[in-house]
């Protein structure tokens, strides 16, 4: 009969109306600034830089390799590497800016970062009174501690920490092996003039690991370890060897 659909619809809205007064399921709205929902761990807004230790700038994991800058689709990242007094690049960003009004939150910078230094934040209240200065995040603003990272995404951070520890261990072992090999080579120097051939399996990591040692001996080492490839948050699993940005 004509009108039965209208009555059905009215019944649905009436249920909503009555239910919203006593059934929490029917009133899912949260009074936002006072009450906040716990964000899901995978929630992401804009990137931030992770640092270890106490000092935000010195502890930055970033080595200013510019991979994220190159890969960023809207090109919102701007990096100038630090240089020492002789003009040689140091493995630290002097300027690291992200234009938040341009960033689209695609997470590609996180995917490509070989050093686990850039991660996605969960802060979404980034309103500013100025469209230009207010929304450009500088290095100091972006740097957030590893503890904070553990707070916002515990699972992923733990995974990253294990992997970094593993890599550190591997790098140390390798350094030890290299040292041992060097010692052996030195011992054999008189007899055989070709010492490097014995360390062939580790040669892939050598160019990056070796120059990293003066500043941050333990942290940076891209690892082609297959164990982390299952995790979506482990971007370097299939990452290629970083280009040699350092001599």
């Amino acid at each position, binding site marked *: 009969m004509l009108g039965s659909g*209208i009555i059905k619809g*009215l019944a649905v*809205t009436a249920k909503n109306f009555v239910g*919203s007064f006593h059934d929490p399921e029917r009133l899912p709205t949260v009074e936002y600034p006072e009450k906040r929902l716990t964000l899901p761990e995978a929630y992401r807004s804009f990137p931030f830089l992770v640092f270890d230790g106490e000092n935000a700038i010195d502890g930055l994991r970033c080595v200013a390799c510019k991979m994220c800058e190159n890969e960023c689709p809207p090109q919102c990242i701007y990096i100038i590497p630090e240089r020492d007094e002789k003009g040689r690049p140091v493995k630290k960003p002097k300027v690291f800016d992200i234009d938040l009004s341009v960033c689209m939150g695609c997470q590609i910078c996180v995917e490509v970062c070989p050093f686990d230094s850039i991660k996605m934040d969960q802060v979404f209240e980034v309103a500013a009174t100025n469209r230009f200065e207010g929304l450009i995040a500088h290095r100091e603003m972006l740097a957030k501690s590893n503890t904070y990272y553990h707070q916002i995404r515990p699972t992923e951070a733990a995974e990253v920490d294990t992997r970094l520890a593993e890599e550190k261990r591997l790098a140390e072992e390798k350094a030890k092996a290299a040292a041992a090999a060097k010692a052996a080579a030195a011992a054999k120097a008189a007899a055989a003039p070709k010492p490097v051939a014995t360390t062939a399996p580790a040669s892939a990591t050598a160019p990056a690991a070796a120059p990293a040692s003066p500043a941050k001996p333990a942290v940076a080492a891209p690892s082609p370890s297959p164990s982390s490839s299952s995790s979506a948050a482990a971007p370097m699993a299939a990452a290629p060897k970083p280009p040699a940005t350092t001599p």
Partner: protein
Amino acid sequence: MTATLERLPLLVRDWITGFFPEPVRWLVSGLLAIVAILAVFGLYFAYLTLAERKFLGRFQNRPGPNRTGPFGLLQPFADAVKALTKEDIVPQAADKLLHFLAPCLVVAFGLISFAVIPFGRYLIPVDLDAAVLYFFAAGVSSELALFMAGWASHNKYSMISAMRALAQLISYELPLLLAVVPVIMLSGTLSTSKIVVAQGGWTFGIIPHWNVLTPWGFAGFFIFMIAAVAETNRSPFDLPEAESELIAGHLTEYSGFKYALFFMAEYFGMSALCGLGVTLFLGGWQAPIDILQVVPSYVWFMVKLSCVIFCLMWVRATLLRLRIDQLTRLAWKFLVPLGLINLGNAAFWHLSADWSGPLQIVRWAISAAVIVIPFVLIGRTLSSGLAPRTYRYAT
């Protein structure tokens, strides 16, 4: 005690007019009536907007405005301040005079309809002999103001909206009047106060003699309310300001206080038309049960009015906007024929007024059949080929 409460507004009026000399008392009492209507319905309008927003929120599973004051009770005043402080923009190519006149007229026409509505036993601003006719004469004029707004804005969307407003008015004026005619026929008067008095009395002290509780009155009430929603341009018949198609229709080029005036006029018009519906069909200020007469009559009127307006909000929260051809088809192919049949039904009811005993049941059965059978048949014709629909993706 009850009598005092009932006469309270009159006593207040007499007390105030007592301060003035005799020759100007009629003027003062007239002005008092105007001020009272403006104050009461101004406040009613303010809280109606809040209630509408809160209720719509509840219908859609959200709490609605609740930030300004406790439970958002100060929201209407915040809105008023905002509307008053906003810049008033007049388009350069607009017809300046008409652009200014339209919001003023729309509120004026919305307000003058209140003059003939009996708000209580002794509370009727003007007790005209041809009150119902006056009401409709005042009501049709407001659509003219909408046309002026649409025309003066020099905007194509506003123009389309103005055309739609006219088409909608012409289409729905007829069912509205056809729904009212049976009431006038049965009560034998055009005066709203006498129509309310004619609906007085209770069977066994609990069943009121309201028009809506008869077959023809029930049908008439529904036709009236559907047409009233269309006349006041409310959802689902808010085609003149269909925001998805016409931005805001005739309101597109209005801002600030002029916009607020249109908003106010919409609510005044709705209150007035619902007030007429209450007067004609729901017994006006009559109490629903005999013993509840201790409550003053004007309270009953406002309670009924609020209930009817709540139903309109409920409908607004539920139904989708019609297309313009569906809108006119509903009027001409459904409401007008039903209204005409209902007229005959009311005539039968009038002629069979002296049937009693078992004949009373026959009377009810015939009257109900006369309205239900055409409803089903016309409904079947109208919806043939439309239902049941199958949806491929939705369940």
